[in-house]
């Protein structure tokens, strides 16, 4: 006789086996040896998590109560699977090309990556799936209790403790294999392989019980059929509304259930697996339901009235003393429950952590939070683990609170209806470009609200909705009665809820979509989703044909350069052990190429380029944004370069100018040296000549003697003046000059200067002055200042080429400075030499010059010493110089007072 301890031992051994299988599969996947792990059979078997403990145990109970209605639960998914070409293929392609991680992620990324929508879907999924998890825990507990009743040793058995340990164990399994790594593709080979094994176990168990019942107990097919017809469910009895509604519901839930989405889309390795699964999975479902009716009929026959039909799979073999078979059936039920719970917890935890925990954590951490990638990675893993624990905790709490007991199937259908509310947003999203985020939100909210009001609250029963509301509707509004909306009574509650929630959900979704306008990113994503077959190519993912390799070659040559690209391709050919110039487009080769390219153009661009040519994953908005980022960086870099090059150009121009100036100065110096030697030589020659005459010629007349001596003296004085000037300039330049600062009136200084120049001059320079402005007291070295004016006036006298030379001197103050302009009516200084007139030895007109070209240079040095300047004023009628000097503040006040 099967003891409870024996059962627990078998159970634990089975779990250990699952652990080993999952572990080995992960190891194999890590080594890259995934050939059989990625076979279509494993994919098909993993889809079998659709068959939970509810279908394993519950289907028989369902058949015992309502005949063939149970089969609708399987017919819906069958229709979806055989229509794979139309729907699932697109879903899987979108999932792969957009790197979708969950159904919430799919809906959110279709509607412009809206996190609000993701949160809504996640909450809906958690609310919908939690009772379902509780259901699985309940089924395991019930099956344990069956064995404990049958246990002859009467071992103590605590239901709550069992549930707790089962929930904890499943959580540990899901954490260990579901959150071991953070793969970009979210594939979990270990879990999927373990699930595939469980799928085989549960099918085998149910078939074994079925075969035992048909051939062992009933004596063959014909006898079994006769027995069925004779039983209480022996006649076709069907509510057509329920038949249609449940078929539809099962089909919708098959697509929308988070765990189904996980295995069907996220864990899908190859789109072509759908081709096999399209017939193999319906076949699996058919075999799962083949013996349900016979078991139900035999159970009703053999077992005492009132025994729970949900457990016939276990109780029929037990009542016949077939402990081994019962044990096998138990393992089948156990497999169904565990695989569903593990995958559901994984899928939900991905959704919860990606769409609820991570956004909160990132916003809490602020901007710098995501800078270190390893940092986020560990947080994501931790949040998933915690989420799994929380979800299992919720399931456990729900089980404890509800106390179990309700017929298994009804919770399952309530859950299905809730999850199916995602369907309009999902289908609309992948087939209709006009679907908008506002529409999806409206549809989801309406559907969710109606589901809670018409099915979930009444279904949970007791106390949540008062009897009065049931009978008269809320606030006495009879048309709002939860199970008879709009006054339509007499409908089956489930059909009523499915009809209204789906109808109004779809209507709200469509209407709001029609009247709202999508954001740009929504429209972009909409086009990507709806036209996914145009944007992504081929079902193979990272593989390509030889023709594509040629394209890749051409592209690589453009980016890397011909020689490097050819060398790279050649190396790859040798690595692959092939011949020729083009390697096979293996994933390794493509990865290498992408890496090489990313060195030149950035990772995102490289990925987009390879993706464009090879296909498999279309260019997503994130890719484009990353490309834009890289381009922006390039732009910034190039603008920096541009700035630098302008700076260089400027420096070069300055250097060129300086060089020109130096050359000019050097030329001037040469000219000056010859001038100086000439200037020195002329008086020296006269001095020498006249000295010789005085020495050698005897008998010179007195007046001749005196005249020659005067000439010698004049020439010597001219020499002295020249040397004085040079000395003066060098003293000024070296800054060793001592200034004799005293107060005086500008008018006096100008009077002195003008009279000095004009005294004894024969040329008729007329000086016009405006004496009003000259009445300014200033503090300066007045002698030096007079020297400047003398020089400037003398220049005008010397160089003014007008017939009647005139010099206008005007004084005024500009911006706190005293300005004296000296403007003559001559032709002025040519523009090209204006810049040079203040340089030493500069002479505008060599033949006209009498001096050594030091006058203006000395003037400028003096004015700099006095804190002012002398500049040439261009744009005047003749030669014009402007002398500026600072006007001290008290003098300003004086001026103002005048």
């Amino acid at each position: 006789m099967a003891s409870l301890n024996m059962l627990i031992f078998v159970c634990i051994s089975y779990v250990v086996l699952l652990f080993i299988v999952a572990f080995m599969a992960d190891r194999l996947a890590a080594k890259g040896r995934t050939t059989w792990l990625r076979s279509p059979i494993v994919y098909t078997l993993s889809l079998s998590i659709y068959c939970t403990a509810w279908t394993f145990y519950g289907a028989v109970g369902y058949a015992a109560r309502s005949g063939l209605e149970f089969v609708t639960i399987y017919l819906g998914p069958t229709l979806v699977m055989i229509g794979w070409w139309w729907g699932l293929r697109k879903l899987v392609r979108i999932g792969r090309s957009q790197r979708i991680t969950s159904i919430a992620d799919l809906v959110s990324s279709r509607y412009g990556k809206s996190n609000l929508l993701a949160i809504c879907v996640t909450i809906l999924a958690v609310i919908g799936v939690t009772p379902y998890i509780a259901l699985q825990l309940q089924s395991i507990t019930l099956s344990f209790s069956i064995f404990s009743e049958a246990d002859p040793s009467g071992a103590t058995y605590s239901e709550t403790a069992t549930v707790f340990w089962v929930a904890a164990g499943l959580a540990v399994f899901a954490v260990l294999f579901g959150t071991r790594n953070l793969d970009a593709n979210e594939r979990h080979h270990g879990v999927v392989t373990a699930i595939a094994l469980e799928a085989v176990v549960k099918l085998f168990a149910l078939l074994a019980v079925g075969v035992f019942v048909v051939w062992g107990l009933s004596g063959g097919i014909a006898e079994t059929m006769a027995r069925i017809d004779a039983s209480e469910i022996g006649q076709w009895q069907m509510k057509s509304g329920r038949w249609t509604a449940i078929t539809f519901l099962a089909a919708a839930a098959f697509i929308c259930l988070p765990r189904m989405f996980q295995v069907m889309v996220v864990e899908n390795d190859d789109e072509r697996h759908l081709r096999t699964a399209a017939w193999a999975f319906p076949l699996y479902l058919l075999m799962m339901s083949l013996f349900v009716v016979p078991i139900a009929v035999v159970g009703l026959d053999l077992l005492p009235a009132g025994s729970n039909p949900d457990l016939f799979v276990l109780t029929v073999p037990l009542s016949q003393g077939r402990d081994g078979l019962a044990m096998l059936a138990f393992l089948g039920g156990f497999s169904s429950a565990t695989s569903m719970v593990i995958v559901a917890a994984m899928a939900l935890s991905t959704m919860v952590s990606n769409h609820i925990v991570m956004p909160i954590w990132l916003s809490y951490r602020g901007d710098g939070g995501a800078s270190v990638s390893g940092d986020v990675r560990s947080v994501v893993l931790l949040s998933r683990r915690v989420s799994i624990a929380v979800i299992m905790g919720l399931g456990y709490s729900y089980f404890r609170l509800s106390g179990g007991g309700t017929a298994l199937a009804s919770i399952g259908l309530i859950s299905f209806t809730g999850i199916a509310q995602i369907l309009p947003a999902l289908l609309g999203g992948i087939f209709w470009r006009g679907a908008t985020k506002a529409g999806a939100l409206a549809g989801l909210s309406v559907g969710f609200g109606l589901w809670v009001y018409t099915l979930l609250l009444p279904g949970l029963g007791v106390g949540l909705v008062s009897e009065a509301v049931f009978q008269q509707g809320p606030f006495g509004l009879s048309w709002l009665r939860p199970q008879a909306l709009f006054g339509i009574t007499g409908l089956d509650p489930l059909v009523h809820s499915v009809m209204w929630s789906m109808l109004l959900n779809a209507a709200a979704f469509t209407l709001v979509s029609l009247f709202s306008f999508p954001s740009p990113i929504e429209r972009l994503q909409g086009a990507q989703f709806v036209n996914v077959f145009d944007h992504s190519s081929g079902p193979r993912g990272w593989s390509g044909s030889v023709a594509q390799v040629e394209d890749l070659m051409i592209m690589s040559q453009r980016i890397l350069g011909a020689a490097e690209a050819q060398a790279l391709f050649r190396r790859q050919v040798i690595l692959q052990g092939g011949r020729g110039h083009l390697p096979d487009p293996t994933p390794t080769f493509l990865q290498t190429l992408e890496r090489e390219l990313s060195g030149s153009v950035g990772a995102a661009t490289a990925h987009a380029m390879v993706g464009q040519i090879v296909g498999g994953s279309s260019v997503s908005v994130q890719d484009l944004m990353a490309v834009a980022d890289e381009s922006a960086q390039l732009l910034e870099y190039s603008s920096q370069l541009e700035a630098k090059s302008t700076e260089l150009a400027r420096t070069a121009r300055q250097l060129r100018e300086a060089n020109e100036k130096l050359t000019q100065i050097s030329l001037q110096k040469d000219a000056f040296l010859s001038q100086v030697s000439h200037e020195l030589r002329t008086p020296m020659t006269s001095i020498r000549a006249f000295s010789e005459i005085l020495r050698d010629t005897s008998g010179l007349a007195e007046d001749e003697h005196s005249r020659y001596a005067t000439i010698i003296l004049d020439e010597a004085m001219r020499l002295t003046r020249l040397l004085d000037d040079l000395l003066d300039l060098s003293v000024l330049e070296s800054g060793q000059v001592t200034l004799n600062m005293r107060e005086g009136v500008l008018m006096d200084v100008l009077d002195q200067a003008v009279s000095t120049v004009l005294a004894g001059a024969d040329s008729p320079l007329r000086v016009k002055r405006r004496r009003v402005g000259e009445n300014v007291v200033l503090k300066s070295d007045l002698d030096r200042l007079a020297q400047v004016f003398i020089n400037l006036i003398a220049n005008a006298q010397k160089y003014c080429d007008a017939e009647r030379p005139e010099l206008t001197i005007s004084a005024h103050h500009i911006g706190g400075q005293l300005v004296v302009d000296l403007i003559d009516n001559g032709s002025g200084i040519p523009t090209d030499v204006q810049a040079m007139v203040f340089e030493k030895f500069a002479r505008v007109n060599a033949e006209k010059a009498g001096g050594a070209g030091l006058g203006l240079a000395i003037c400028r040095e003096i004015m700099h010493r006095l804190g002012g300047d002398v500049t040439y004023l261009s744009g005047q009628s003749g030669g014009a110089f402007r002398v500026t000097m600072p006007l001290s503040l008290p003098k300003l006040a004086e001026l103002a007072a005048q």
Partner: protein
Amino acid sequence: MNDDRSSPSVFLEHQSYRRNRLADAARLLPVIGAAVLAVPLLWPSADSAQVVAGEVEAVPMSTAILYIFGAWAGLIGLSVVFGMAARRWGQPDGPQRPGQG
């Protein structure tokens, strides 16, 4: 080349034409399935007035099982046939390139 994808030709070769019609049939499969599986809705139910009055005999459960499971198996069979055909295409949605090994 990529051009094939961006601007599909209106007239296809015989082989491609066949393939497209087969894809049409595949799209039709769930519709056929739904229709076939809706047939039992037309059967007189055991609790309907006519059956209770004895005018018509209710469909026995064994017949119902045979019909539903038969239809189900038939759908699976059609799906297998289509899957086999799709397997021969290699790439379900891109014209085969000539000279490709």
